[in-house]
């Protein structure tokens, strides 16, 4: 047998020293005991004969997906959403347990749909529960940032995987500050939503459809993500380059839509100004692109890969490839970060939004190294940003060859969160996030960094172990 060229040592350092003494290089694992109570489940899951191949398949399925922007239509049309039906971010929740920002967004949404005159009247409507229903965006192939409230009249981006025709959806981004998704529902919020559904949505639809009929390629959302990650965006808290590239791709068709489509130059100018002035506009394309990719890994039995992380402002939930549509939930945490104006930690609501789908897909906090500016949200440094991305490689199944980080020698972003590795290392996914005010109507109070509640990973692991044990009996 040939002499090994290198040794990995996990355990006693003494044994690594003995190898190093023989002039063979040793990589030493910084091993620590796993999360409490997970030892037996980790062994069961590791022994599941389906696991390795299932995870390979889940990762490959996810990486194989590309997302293109194929249409912009109202939610009533895209999702068949009817009056009184409300989608929201995160795992399922009812009005009684809903947090301030989710309530505020639902109230504003009810007024926007004309279900009530004044948003304040919506409280009684939701308390009564008659003729209104709440459902997670994720259950309708949709993702929503922050409160994630979607109503029938809101316009949605429609993304499609050209290889399979599968689609996902996301609303249009309203900008920052006092906006519905942060729980604000004042007159200016509702006025903006009306302009978005009367002008912005139809104009974008005209542009997207005009490009398609002219035989031009649809906007390649995955491709823009590839480029923006090399331009200082991590596609969660920073979408500046992505937004400008989208403008580049759509503005000629938007300008052309003036002719005979009922828009005037002022409409187009307002739309261009709105998009260009909203650094987060592209987030609502990044999110459904991530969901489109991750949904390809759903339902792969034996796979331990996380396919969704989402928060409703009260609970943080994850879904896993090998456990079907089950949510594993725990209390949403408070973000650590910077506050707008006079707001402080006491004003912030716990973590909210489906936008952690970006981290689930390996960008956002996972790509922190490529967007060091984001680290300043917690007073961190550039080395912190590099360390964060490297740390996320410890809990992921692979790398995304498409999405690479220049400063890390173009290493792919850490992709495919492995429930087992999270439990083994105790390293929690790092999420970049905005912070909503905890009182309905306040809006955004800051932005920062947050992690999921640790206990949801052992929960998911226990279910995987249960299924693995059952699988072996049959």
């Amino acid at each position: 047998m040939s002499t090994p060229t290198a040794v990995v040592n996990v355990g006693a350092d003494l044994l690594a020293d003995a190898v190093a003494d023989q002039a063979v290089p040793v990589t030493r694992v910084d091993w620590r005991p796993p999360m409490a109570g997970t030892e037996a489940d980790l062994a069961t899951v590791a022994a599941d004969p389906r696991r390795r191949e299932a995870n390979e398949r889940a990762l490959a399925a996810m990486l194989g997906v590309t997302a293109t922007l194929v249409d912009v239509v109202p939610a009533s049309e895209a999702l068949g959403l009817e009056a009184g039906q409300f989608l929201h971010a995160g795992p399922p929740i009812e009005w009684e347990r809903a947090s301030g920002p989710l309530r505020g967004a639902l109230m504003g949404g009810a007024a926007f749909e004309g279900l009530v005159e004044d948003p304040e009247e919506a409280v009684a409507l939701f308390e009564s529960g008659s003729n209104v229903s709440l459902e997670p965006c994720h259950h309708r192939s949709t993702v929503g940032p922050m409160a994630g409230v979607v109503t029938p009249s809101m316009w949605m981006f429609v993304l499609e995987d050209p290889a399979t025709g599968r689609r996902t959806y996301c609303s249009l981004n309203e900008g920052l500050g006092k906006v519905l998704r942060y729980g604000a529902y004042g007159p200016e919020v509702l006025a903006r939503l009306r302009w978005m559904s009367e002008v912005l949505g139809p104009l974008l639809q005209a542009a997207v459809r005009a490009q398609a009929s002219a035989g031009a390629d649809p906007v390649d959302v995955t491709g823009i993500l590839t480029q923006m990650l090399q331009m200082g965006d991590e596609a969660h808290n920073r979408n500046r380059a992505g937004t400008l590239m989208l403008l580049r791709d759509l503005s000629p068709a938007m300008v052309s839509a003036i002719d005979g489509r009922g828009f005037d130059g002022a409409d187009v100018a307002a739309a261009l100004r709105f998009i260009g002035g909203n650094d987060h506009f592209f987030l609502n394309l990044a999110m459904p692109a991530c969901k489109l990719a991750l949904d390809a890994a759903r339902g792969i039995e034996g796979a331990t890969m996380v396919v969704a992380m989402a928060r409703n402002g009260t609970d943080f939930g994850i879904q896993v490839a090998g456990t079907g549509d089950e949510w594993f939930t725990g209390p949403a945490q408070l973000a650590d970060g910077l506050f707008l104006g006079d707001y402080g930690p006491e004003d912030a609501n716990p973590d909210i939004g489906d936008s952690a789908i970006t981290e689930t897909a390996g960008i956002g906090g996972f790509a922190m190294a490529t967007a060091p500016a984001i680290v300043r949200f917690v007073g961190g440094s550039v080395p912190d940003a590099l360390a964060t991305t490297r740390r996320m490689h410890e809990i992921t199944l692979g790398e995304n060859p498409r999405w690479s980080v220049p400063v890390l020698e173009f290493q792919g972003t850490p992709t495919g969160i492995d429930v087992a590795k999270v439990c083994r290392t105790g390293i929690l996914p790092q999420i970049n996030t905005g912070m909503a005010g905890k009182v309905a109507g306040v809006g955004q109070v800051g932005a920062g960094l947050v992690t999921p509640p640790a206990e949801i990973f052992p929960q998911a692991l226990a279910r995987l172990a249960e299924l693995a044990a059952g699988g072996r009996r049959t």
Partner: protein
Amino acid sequence: MTTAAPDHQHVELRPGAYADSVTLLQVSRVVQGLAGVVAAQVAMATPLNVDVLTEMGFEVPPQAGANDLVVALRLASPDALAAALAGVDRALLDANRREEGASTVAPPRTTASALRRTPGAITVVSVPGANAFVEAMDAVDAGRDVMVFSDNVPLEQEVALKRAAAERGVLVMGPDCGTAVVGGLGLGFANVVAPGPVGIVAASGTGCQQLLALLAHAGVGVTSALGVGGRDLSAAVGGLATREALRRLDEDPGVELIVLVSKPPAAEVGAEIEAYAATLATPVQLALLGPGRPDLTAAAEAVLARLGGDVPTWPVDPPESPGRVDGTLIRGLFVGGTLKSEAELIVGDAAGAEVGHTFVDFGDDEYTTGRAHPMIDPTLRLEHLVRAAADPATGVLLLDVVLGHGAEPDPAALLAPAIAALDLPVVVAVVGTDGDPQGRDRQVEALVAAGAEVHLSNAGATRRALELVEADR
């Protein structure tokens, strides 16, 4: 959580702190050497360690669990406490400090991550037994060979690991594999030997080391010695690792003779392995250890004969001042499991088991849960040594000292003074080579000076011990 007793005792639990038993042994040693410290133990509060601490006179809080670090100090005066605790913290820090070079990249946290950084590496796993399977599976998943040094690995996990490995053509050495030489690289407790025509497959760590040491003395080299773990040839495991190890050695053009060292296998497994061995191009010599069977030394002699070499006289170094035999019984205190079994078998075959000779293996699971192996930490055996010598029924002490990479840097440093303090005869098998980091010749010299009679052959040492007690009858 702190208690202070009048004898200046300090016992402190640190929940959630973790370090491996070897690190903690080093920490304990450093702290014992501090001014004002009479005795010190820093250890994980496993049941065994709690017993040891209790025996040392420490009161361990009842809620102490295996995940708690316990710091137990006996001090010359209460004033020494602050300095001693600072010393504990410093020693813990120092033990964890590693030379990182200029790089700021954090070390990998799992075997999978390490293998991604170091593709092609062979993996050595020595985490606690309950966690070893998960780490070893990372290596199997990556298609890389793995040595599992950890003991206390559940049998069903060993079976799952080896089945997955067999599907992928991966070699799993262990669990509870103490020794391997892979293409000349020693892993675990391995002796330094020259490359040569013999390949070994061993279900026993110290059995393998005895063979390596005897062959080295006879001038015959070994390029690879692959451990497979003591349970591999059981019916449950079915010899999965043994087959793969035989296949690897057969593929190696440098191997002229394969030696398989094991306890007698489960009957059906033995038949399968023999059938498989018959299909190989390289001859396979079985060295199966058991009642009425040849011992390790006889096996080494058979190997030498088969290779056509001379069988040397195995070295014996007589003591400078032999002790006096008073009692009638042999007390065997071993660090090597196979060496202990071999001694027990030889004495049993010669004298019958009912006579009352006793043999203890301090490397057995019951002595090593949450503690370093006695080849690294001699404390438990040294305690028993004093106790056994004080027993008037004891006629001879029979010991082993196992050298090689990973083992104590100078076992004689503590053992020789302990032996020098005794009146009765002490026979020691020093299993090792002159190339070992401890230097067999230096160890032998120190032990002989202390009054021990030293053999290279454990079987030879055992027969000599029998002779001593029987001559006295």
